[in-house]
């Protein structure tokens, strides 16, 4: 009697583990790796070229780790993303604020910002290459461009969405222009600053990969591209997995909490 109960409890526990949270993720990961291995082992001809098995990807990562190239590629890409993104956001927030301060100026620059926000950094890449050649500057400028416009546009529209009533109330109570900006406009625009940051970094991350591929600068993008050139498909898959995992970690553990916390703290201003 008790043994059956125990068994049932165990089964229940196992079911709960398998269908919820971390257990589900582990099962999913193991399952997809087994599926990948099965496909590459039995379904595909010449798996080295078209879909190497997980083992060879791991071996290639060990090889690259041993040579030290993996870490240097990875750090190059991350440094580019951080520098480009940080500078873009650091310029974008003040510019967006400055343009949003005056309703007249905001109306004037809104279509311009909207236009440049939708011109993707990848599309202007050839222009930048003509200006600066295939250099690190080119990649940095593309990242800067892609991260600047989404945040500036978002801050601009965020500042504009603060009700005039609040500004007038602060003014009536004797607030100076600086105080209005600091105490009314900036907190009011905070949610859209957070949204814009996440958008900026998301676009910038894609731009880093594309920029490195096209300009041929060392980095993750170049790693997968040279993997294609040298017929080293394991290296491509390794790079892709790293790109995906990095973005998931960045998005789920840094940007998304930042965004939700900001929205929770400063809230959507009542319209």
């Amino acid at each position, binding site marked *: 009697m008790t043994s059956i109960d125990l068994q049932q409890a165990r089964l229940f526990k196992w079911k709960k583990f398998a269908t919820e949270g971390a257990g589900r993720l582990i099962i999913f990961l193991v399952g997809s790796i087994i599926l990948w291995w099965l496909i590459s082992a039995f379904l595909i001809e010449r798996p080295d070229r078209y879909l190497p098995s997980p083992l060879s990807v791991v071996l290639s990562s060990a090889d690259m780790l041993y040579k030290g190239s993996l870490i240097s590629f990875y750090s190059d890409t991350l440094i580019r993303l951080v520098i480009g993104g940080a500078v873009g956001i650091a310029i974008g927030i003040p510019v967006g604020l400055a343009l949003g301060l005056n309703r007249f100026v905001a109306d004037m620059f809104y*279509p311009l910002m909207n236009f440049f926000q939708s011109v993707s950094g990848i599309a202007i890449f050839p222009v930048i290459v003509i200006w600066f050649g295939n250099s690190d500057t080119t990649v940095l400028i593309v990242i800067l461009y892609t991260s600047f416009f989404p945040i500036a546009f978002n801050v601009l529209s965020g500042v504009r969405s603060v009700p005039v009533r609040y500004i007038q109330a602060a003014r009536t109570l004797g607030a100076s222009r600086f105080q209005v900006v600091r105490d009314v406009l900036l907190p009011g625009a905070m949610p859209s600053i957070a949204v814009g940051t996440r958008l900026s970094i998301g676009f910038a991350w*894609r731009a880093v990969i594309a920029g490195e591929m096209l300009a041929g600068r060392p980095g993750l993008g170049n790693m997968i591209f040279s993997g294609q050139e040298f017929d080293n498909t394991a290296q491509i898959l390794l790079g892709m997995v790293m*790109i995906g995992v990095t973005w998931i970690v960045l998005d789920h553990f840094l940007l998304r909490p930042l965004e939700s916390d900001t929205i929770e703290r400063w809230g959507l201003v009542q319209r």
Partner: protein
Amino acid sequence: MTAITEFSIAVQKRVGRQRLLKAFKVLLGSVPFIFLIILWELNTQFVWFDPIEIPPLSDVWGAIFFLQSDCPGFVAAMQQHNDCNLTNNIMSSLGRVILAGVVGIPLGIAFGILAGMNRTISGYLEPVGIFMNSVSGIAWIPLAIVWFGVGWETTLFIMLNTIFWLIFFNTMMGVRAVPKVLVQGVQTLGGSYYDTIKHVYLPGAMPSVITGMRMSLGFGWRALIAAEMIGGDSGLGFMIFVSAVEFKTEEVFLGVILISLIYLISDRYMLVPLEKWTIERWGLVWKPT
């Protein structure tokens, strides 16, 4: 009352204040663009930058006719005559978007609904969607080149890949957000399996499907341009990349302007109204973050 105020009041009464304000906003918004164009023209006058770096505006306009110079006519352009460079490239880019949309959107919706109806399956597939959307687009290009070689298959695959996973993921999340009560309500009234899909899941997921479509056009168009640059043999991305290598800057500028205009117009005049209409019609069940 002066004549000017009288005139302005008369105009406001005649045209309507709201419409005047709107027109004024459009006028105001065009000021920076006009200013930029004037700067551009001044640059060609005083040659602050080399024409090879910033080509004159007239050259950019002339590039259209240069690229189309041997084109026999409109009908030949539509039939993709060999000499109509510009229209061929535009059409091959657009054709890939449309083809990928026609194949990818129904597939994404179908699989998304099937996966979203079962909570366990969708729980397992959610990480797949997140991962595939994270590796989206550009990172797939080298692998696609290995699989399909340089050419239209690669670019089509990149576009299809971006569209499918975004639509699939958004549909799945939309279907999952449909309240169970509604499904059970239809089932109690004698609705079949097919009825629940047609009358509950599909309309319930519609707003998030449309959001997925907008996102997939935004990300997919960027990825398509990059794919054409790296692994394509036609299309606007290919055109600007080749022109940049040959230092024909005016063609690059023309291509960049065309790429952004096509995206802006298709987003503003097709997808935004569609999204608005869908949300009005079926309501916002799941609010995308």
